[in-house]
């Protein structure tokens, strides 16, 4: 499996995902420190707490634009399949965990962990594409 750097949509996807991931890490660290040390108060706490979520929205934006900008219809179909598989896995995980948590069988987890499940499913979708269609999708 290798990333096709000659494809402009793929390159843009990688850049957008990289920036979003970097902003996610930095904003989360900043919020943890500033809110944890009680260095901010008022509406700024809300803005700081929401900033990592905006970075995650940036990741979804990167996925959306990968579809919009993709000129190759076959690769676009593969990426869409990956997104469907990723979404299916994430909501299945959320449903399962939700009921296990409701009946006290597992600890509470923050819902943003389902985003990790989504991206895990997105990657798994690439493997499914490779097996069924002979190409990975966004990595082809």
């Amino acid at each position, binding site marked *: 499996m290798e990333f096709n750097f000659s494809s402009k949509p793929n390159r843009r996807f990688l850049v957008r995902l990289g920036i979003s991931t970097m902003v996610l890490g930095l904003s989360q660290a900043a919020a943890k420190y500033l809110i944890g040390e009680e260095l901010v108060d008022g509406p700024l706490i809300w803005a700081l707490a929401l900033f990592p979520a905006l970075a995650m929205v940036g990741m979804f934006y990167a996925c959306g634009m990968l579809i919009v900008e993709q000129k190759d219809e076959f*690769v676009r*179909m593969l990426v869409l399949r990956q997104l469907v598989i990723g979404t299916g896995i994430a909501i299945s995980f959320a449903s399962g965990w939700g009921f296990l948590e409701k009946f006290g069988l597992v600890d509470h987890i923050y819902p943003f962990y389902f985003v990790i499940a989504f991206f895990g499913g997105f990657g798994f979708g690439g493997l499914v594409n490779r097996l069924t269609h002979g190409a990975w999708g966004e990595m082809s």
Partner: protein
Amino acid sequence: MKNRLKVLRAERDWRQQDLAQRLEVSRQSVNAIETGKYDPSLPLAFRIADIFALPIEQIFLRD
């Protein structure tokens, strides 16, 4: 849907990459169409027909 893409490409001594460049798609797309794993859209099927200078029905065949 069956197609004669591989035969037509071989007749012209084109690699999959050559045809992909002419169609402005990835090599994987050409491979997927040739192996019947993906049926192209009508606009792409017309582009293929134009490149081979053949009617669509002489390239793509009913199962």
